[in-house]
């Protein structure tokens, strides 16, 4: 089965692809320097810190001496990444290459370490803002907004309210995830299914990446948008920031971000403000960070029954992808993992690993403490059922028959064996099956012999 993988590309890869002038402008912002530093591989972070206060170029040979032999591949990855992000500048002397930190980046990171960065906006005083939502309410809001957006994205028709994204914007997000034939209800593609099973952070990156890629058409500069998003990740969750501190472009962006659940917009008597949620402040953290796992809700039993403590329509849709949902109670979804439901999922392009990872990552806290979180017999069976569909392996081949003599047959069979193309032979009846790749070579060989 073809494995299509959505690579929710890292934000930083996007940053790295910006032209040099724009990248230099980005590095004037201390917070962006910090965000870039945090996104680097650990060895690269070390190199940046070590070179922070060195003004002269360092030869690549000296740099190599910092690592032991075992780490040379990691060393190369780190250096390449630093050059890609233009944090490290290459100075080609006649005899050997040397490296120096990007001076804008260096100056601003130094300032950041010694003085600490101050954002261009301060939280508003509490006497102006009305009752602010608590962190739990804010989390619930962010979660609700994001789910609503996702439901609309997969156009299951179950979204309670529609977002304010224009339909053209939604179509751009849906590109690759949904396939619509004429007069048919849009169906999820393989990538669409995989997208649904990814965790929230990965999904968020995917959507934001599409949003940024299309911002040029909306008339917003990509670098500005990236700078604003990175800056947003350093604000304090739950604090109110006045909308007056935003530029016009940023104000337009803020409404879209509110639809995604990154910020909450509120209005007071005279002023209006935005409150960053956890989704926003975790933007600069890496994709694989496990501390952002939201609370799990799925219990899988050894008898293949599934109990999901959730009232979310999105969760129900996701579970329907690979299990048979039997009842839906106000706070509980009951279902069973059956061979039919799994075959259905496999046909749609979902792999057993994705299903198992989804179940493990979303395991209810009660079962998450146990190892394994999902019973082994269930995970083994899911994998076995997947291999069921892979029982037959097809290789294009040719069958050779009616050899004139035993010698010719044996010579041909040895020839095929030498070229690793012999799949099957029957010496008694002098027949053999050879891989299609070496068919032409076989013909030449047989003609040669005759």
């Amino acid at each position, binding site marked *: 089965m073809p494995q299509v993988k959505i690579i929710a590309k890292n934000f930083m890869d996007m940053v790295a692809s910006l032209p040099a002038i724009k990248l230099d402008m980005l590095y004037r912002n201390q917070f962006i320097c910090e965000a870039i530093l945090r996104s680097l591989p650990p060895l690269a972070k*070390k190199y940046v810190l070590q070179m922070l206060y060195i003004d002269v170029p360092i030869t690549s040979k000296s740099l190599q001496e910092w690592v032991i032999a075992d780490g040379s591949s990691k060393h190369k990855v780190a250096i390449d990444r630093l050059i890609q992000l233009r944090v490290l500048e290459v100075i080609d002397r006649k005899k050997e290459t040397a490296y120096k930190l990007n001076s804008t980046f260096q100056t601003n990171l130094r300032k950041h370490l010694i003085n600490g960065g101050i954002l261009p906006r301060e939280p508003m005083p509490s006497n102006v803002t009305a009752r602010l939502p608590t962190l739990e309410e804010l989390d619930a809001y962010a979660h609700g907004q994001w789910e609503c957006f996702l439901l609309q994205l997969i156009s299951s028709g179950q979204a309670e309210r529609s977002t304010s994204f224009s339909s053209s914007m939604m179509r751009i997000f849906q590109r690759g995830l949904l396939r619509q034939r004429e007069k048919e209800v849009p169906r999820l593609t393989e990538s669409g299914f995989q997208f649904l099973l990814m965790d929230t952070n990965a999904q968020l990156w995917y959507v934001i990446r599409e949003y940024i890629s299309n911002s040029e058409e909306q008339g917003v500069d990509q670098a500005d948008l990236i700078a604003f998003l990175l800056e947003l990740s350093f604000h304090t969750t739950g604090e109110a920031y006045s909308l007056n501190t935003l530029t016009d472009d940023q104000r337009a962006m803020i409404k879209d971000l509110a639809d995604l659940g990154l910020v909450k917009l509120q209005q007071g008597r005279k002023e209006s403000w935005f409150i960053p949620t956890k989704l926003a402040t975790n933007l600069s953290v890496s994709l694989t960070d496990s501390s952002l796992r939201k609370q799990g809700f799925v219990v899988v039993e050894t008898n293949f029954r599934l109990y999901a403590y959730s009232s979310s329509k999105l969760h129900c849709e996701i579970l329907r992808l690979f299990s048979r949902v039997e009842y839906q109670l106000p706070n509980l979804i009951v279902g069973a993992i059956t061979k039919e439901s799994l075959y259905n999922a496999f046909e749609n392009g979902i792999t057993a690993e994705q299903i198992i990872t989804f179940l493990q990552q979303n395991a209810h806290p009660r079962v998450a*403490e146990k190892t394994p979180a999902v019973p082994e017999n269930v995970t083994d069976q899911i994998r076995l059922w997947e291999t069921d569909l892979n029982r037959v392996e097809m290789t294009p081949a040719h069958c050779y028959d009616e050899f004139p003599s035993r010698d010719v047959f044996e010579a041909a069979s040895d020839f095929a064996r030498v070229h690793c193309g012999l799949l099957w032979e029957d010496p008694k009846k002098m027949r053999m099956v050879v891989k299609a790749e070496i068919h032409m070579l076989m013909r030449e060989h047989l003609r040669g012999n005759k």
Partner: protein
Amino acid sequence: MAPAPSKLYADDVSLVVVLLDTNPFFWSSSSLSFSQFLSHVLAFFNAILTLNQLNQVVVIATGYNSCDYIFDSSSDLNRSFENGRMPVMCSSLLQKLEEFLIKDEQFSKEEPDGRIKSSLLSGSLSMALCYIQRVFRSGALHPHPRVPIDSCYIGAQNSAFLQQASYITGGVHHKPQNLDGLFQYLMTIFATDLHSRSFLNLPKPVGVDFRASCFCHKDTIDMGYICSVCLSIFCKHHKKCSTCGSVFGQAQSEVASASDKKRKTPET
């Protein structure tokens, strides 16, 4: 001197517990002033917190009468300030430090003079290790954390204890030659997360002095007496162990000569 145990969660996330030696008897005679030292060290803390959103720094001050926590980056007060982190950290840390120093000095006013005013390193080390254990109990990820102890020694002599501690726990011991550049030493050597340590060329232990020192005089000795209960080392025979209080019997050499005498008498 300022040792610093560090911990690993995953990849390069680190918990760094720093033991700052604040012994005024040492700092008053040091070539690097305490305030200059603090400016290097505070920038070092900020660098660690900058490297990863999940990094945590805890500082324990080691005085000559007491030890206490003076900074924890994960406490609510400090956590919410990604914005303007350095000013908040500095003011909070320096204030607590000053309160600690005043309290530390007050303890000695109650005691008689004449005691050697050495820093209570073992006390602060125990506090640090207990803190780390507690954090890991609640994390349930690594039941037995590996805690390397790095030590940065500032001063004229050498500390055999710190060298041994760093060597045995797999940490790094270094005595910076040029104290003007202390920040650069801290950045290059001590700000390395545990994951990267396996790939970097860090100062290797050269000529660690492995000899034991006796508990009564702190002299290095080659032969001595050991308590069989707590393994404390003494250079001469004592009636009672000063660490665990167990009572010792007669010295082995005295017992041997007594039985020898007894045996000799019947023969003659």
